[in-house]
């Protein structure tokens, strides 16, 4: 079975991007600790979203160009399984490292340590959703020329994840339970996990045609 594909060097770019964007906020917004603590969760989520989008950029483009996509479609195994495995590998090399460096970002915003578990849980649930939705977008826009503009079309889909994700952290910040937000995120994750690989597979078949 197809395993994770190692892309040394390329893999770290989104994680570094995540760190840099995250760090830019405190630098640009001054050092008022209350302000930073307030915008922290939201800013981290935005950085995460952008980093995931970046990592997906041209996800399948090089595969299309060098004929690998053809061979992928010819493997006698349901395509959505292969895609699922590929995306899982992608998350492991992008999302997981992002989770690992999140404490650094939280520190730079001066976030309360109590917020960290919720932040990590929300990101762990939310980054796969962003990844899966982004992959669908990449597959659909593979053979069209308006790449960047089409990406904007998918942006509204990311909003619920962003809202619930940062909402969960803010809930804890204000002393409420994040359970509601987290369970909605979990539901989102489950739904996208179930249908996204199939959607990507179908989109790829159409793009290749």
């Amino acid at each position, binding site marked *: 079975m197809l395993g994770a594909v190692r892309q040394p060097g390329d893999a770290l770019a989104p994680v570094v991007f995540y760190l840099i964007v995250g760090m830019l906020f405190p630098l640009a917004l001054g050092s008022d600790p209350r302000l930073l603590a307030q915008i922290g969760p939201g800013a981290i989520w935005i950085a995460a979203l952008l980093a995931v989008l970046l990592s997906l950029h041209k996800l399948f483009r090089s595969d299309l160009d060098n004929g*690998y996509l053809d061979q992928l479609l010819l493997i006698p195994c349901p395509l959505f399984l292969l895609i699922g495995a590929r995306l899982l590998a992608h998350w492991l090399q992008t999302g997981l490292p992002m989770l690992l460096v999140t404490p650094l970002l939280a520190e730079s915003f001066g976030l309360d340590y109590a917020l960290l578990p919720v932040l990590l849980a929300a990101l762990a649930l939310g980054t796969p959703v962003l990844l899966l939705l982004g992959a669908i977008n990449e597959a659909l826009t593979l053979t069209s020329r308006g790449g960047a503009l089409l990406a904007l079309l998918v942006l509204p889909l990311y909003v619920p994840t962003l809202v619930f994700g940062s909402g969960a952290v803010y809930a804890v910040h204000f002393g409420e339970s994040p359970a509601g937000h987290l369970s909605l995120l979990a539901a989102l994750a489950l739904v996208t996990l179930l249908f996204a690989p199939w959607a990507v597979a179908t989109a790829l078949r159409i793009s290749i045609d």
Partner: protein
Amino acid sequence: MISTDNLAARRGERLLFNGVNFKLDQGQALRITGANGTGKTTLLRILAGLTEPDLGSVKWCGEDIRQCRETFHQQLAYSGHQFGLRGELTALENLRYLTPDSSESSALIETMDRVGLARCINLPARYLSQGQRRRLILAGLVAGQARCWILDEPLAALDNAGIEMVETLCADHLKNSGILIITSHQNLSSTLGRVAELHLG
């Protein structure tokens, strides 16, 4: 075992071909000829199940390939204009991806030796020349043991020794009851025996 039923395909507004009908049994080969732009690659991709025809169908053992996709693809090896190799993986790793069914490294290495790539086994694929990449694809064909080979311009970028090797491998494949569909601008030598021809355009 592979047959077509009134295939037709269009590119944009232009009709590429119409009413393509043929049937190939084990041990038979078909060569598709035609000038550039007449739809040879499109026809091969339709036969491989990568592209949908505008009309008609392709059948594998009597069943439409859209119904028996997995069975058909298990028996199929397709080699297109681009090689489908991942540059950052070594030649051997690429070969393993191309032939997911075989697990013996030693068998793969032996195949690489057979096509003349013994020195490139652990070389990242992006350092291989065009001719070497072509040979790697051929190694994949041989190691994969597929019943049906669909090859788009397999002789491109090969020197005379390479061309001879391809023809020998194809002849062996046909002797082992394989099916071969090939496009080639060059004439194939007689090592392949009788080859049916289909001219497009």
